[in-house]
């Protein structure tokens, strides 16, 4: 309440000062005409129409498109995060095989979701441009799945993966192979992100 009174007082003081200076210096003033030519009226309404169109339609379209792009990019980032987690998991001795299995399953589900949404949300030419990335990303994820979850049919002297009671151990060579494939997938995902961002 006290603040409101102070604000009102400040407004009155400013207005009084302005009015006093205006009278003392005799500044010019505007005269408002009650007449308006038809050309001026048309110009006014056209300007108003364009202003409303720009703010309501174009701005909204630009904003919607930006939000849509951000959604796609954040979905792609989700795959990258999972790939990073897989990289960390395989480094551990005795990592949970089911956890790795679930991570790669999520990767593929998200990837499929992204490309389905690209089909649904972009026009044909843009969709075709973005879908060019699908085969190489799918191939990468499928190769990674095999490297992570394929245990041998027969036991050999050298084990790339040893799995006992649900706990997996990857050989150093296999870890390197996994990292190479993960980096290749990340490169493809980055290119896809850049392409989406430049739309």
């Amino acid at each position, binding site marked *: 309440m006290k603040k409101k009174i102070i604000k009102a007082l400040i407004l009155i003081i400013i207005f009084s000062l302005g009015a006093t200076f205006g009278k003392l210096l005799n500044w010019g003033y505007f005269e408002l005409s009650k007449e308006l030519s038809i050309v001026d009226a048309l110009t006014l309404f056209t300007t108003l129409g364009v202003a409303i169109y720009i703010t309501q339609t174009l701005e909204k379209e630009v904003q919607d498109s930006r939000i849509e792009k951000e959604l796609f990019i954040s979905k792609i980032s989700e795959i990258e995060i999972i790939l990073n987690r897989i990289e960390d998991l395989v480094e551990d001795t005795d990592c949970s*095989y*089911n956890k790795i*299995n*679930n*991570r*790669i*399953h*999520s990767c*593929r*589900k998200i990837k*499929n979701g992204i490309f389905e949404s690209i089909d649904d949300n972009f026009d044909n030419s843009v969709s075709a441009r973005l879908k060019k990335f699908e085969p190489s990303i*799918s191939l990468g994820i*499928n190769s990674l*799945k*095999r490297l*992570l*979850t*394929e*245990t041998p*049919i027969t036991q050999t002297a050298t084990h790339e993966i040893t*799995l*006992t*009671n*649900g*706990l997996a151990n990857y050989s150093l060579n296999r870890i390197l192979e996994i990292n190479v494939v993960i980096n290749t997938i990340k490169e493809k995902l980055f290119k896809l992100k850049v392409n989406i961002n430049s739309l």
Partner: protein
Amino acid sequence: MKIKIATDFSRIPCARFISEGDFPGEEFREKVLLPKLKDAIQKKEKLEIDLDGTAGLGTSFLEESFGGLIRIDNVEHSVILDTISFISNDDPDYVAEIIEYLKEADEKENN
């Protein structure tokens, strides 16, 4: 006839052999898939396999389950393809993967 892996076997299938962890492909093939497949072949019915609803189906699980039908149980490749159909809405890539493992197992058996 229908098998839903998530409810008829496990939501968290593991790898290939029993020694590797709980709910492996070997157990799925022996206890669930093969008996139903034999029944379907005998009754000349289709066997629909629903792959949805699991935490993930690893390469070893799928290879041992389906490739094992050819490699261990000597079911003919063409008979499997004629009898089995798949539902895989969560991840349609699983179907292509299984077809590939069946083909690989068949090629190994015939070479």
